[in-house]
């Protein structure tokens, strides 16, 4: 797999969503270990997903601690950043 093929397949997003076939997953893994752009994408999205899970888990443990509870419904779709 080359970089153009990875882009065409939306491989980074499909990889993190576990939507690639076994063969394509193997091919993409071979590619992204060698491709700085795709490796950065996989790291960024992987970190985002993991951190999202932790943020949510933290807010479930102490729902009153954060006034900016990221997962909470915000009437009117506020941008939510008051800092």
């Amino acid at each position: 797999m080359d970089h153009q093929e990875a882009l065409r397949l939306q491989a980074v997003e499909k990889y993190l969503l576990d939507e690639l076939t076994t063969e394509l997953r193997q091919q993409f893994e071979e590619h992204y270990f060698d491709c700085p752009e795709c490796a950065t994408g996989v790291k960024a999205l992987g970190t985002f997903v993991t951190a999202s899970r932790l943020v949510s888990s933290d807010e479930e443990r102490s729902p009153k601690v954060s006034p900016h509870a990221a997962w909470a419904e915000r009437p009117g779709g506020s941008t939510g950043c008051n800092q």
Partner: protein
Amino acid sequence: MEFFAFDKSYVDRPGDGEPSTEQHFVAYFGQILGIMLRARYLSPERVDDIRQETFARVLATLRRDGGIRQPERFGAFVNAVCKNVLRENMWHLYRNQALQLDQLELPDPNKIVDLERELISQETKEKVRRILAEMKPRDRELLRALFLEEKDKDEICREFGVEREYLRVLLYRAMVRFRSTFDLPAANAVGRTSGGAM
């Protein structure tokens, strides 16, 4: 988060006993090896064992005379070593276990969360918290269903009335937004959150 390409001078340095390159190698590949191995539903302990063995074998090769033949394909080499270690590890695991479902090793979700907690800095969590807060409530709920509740994707799409493509677009936007926070000093990154596209 960094954008990095390998060359001959890089792969020669650990062979010369250069500690900072070795540390960079471990940090850079530690993360992508972890993502690749966790995608295979391995326990945190097994992920760590395989990762450490991969590092040991790669560094041993670099220190040997001749090193590796194609320095520009160093990443592919690390990937191949890891796949070999993984295969050997799985072979040992299944050889030593009768293949009964109740004996199969499954990762403990609590241990995974604890391990993740160690890997993600408070600063990163704050960035993600702000990005999530910029999103439309429906998109936040969708991500929550996807990654926290780990619901079936088709069920999520039905529930939220979206196509599978929408999940990929949502992730792509989140990735772009998240990456943008690493291109700026922390103070500026805070100021950008109110102008997000999501």
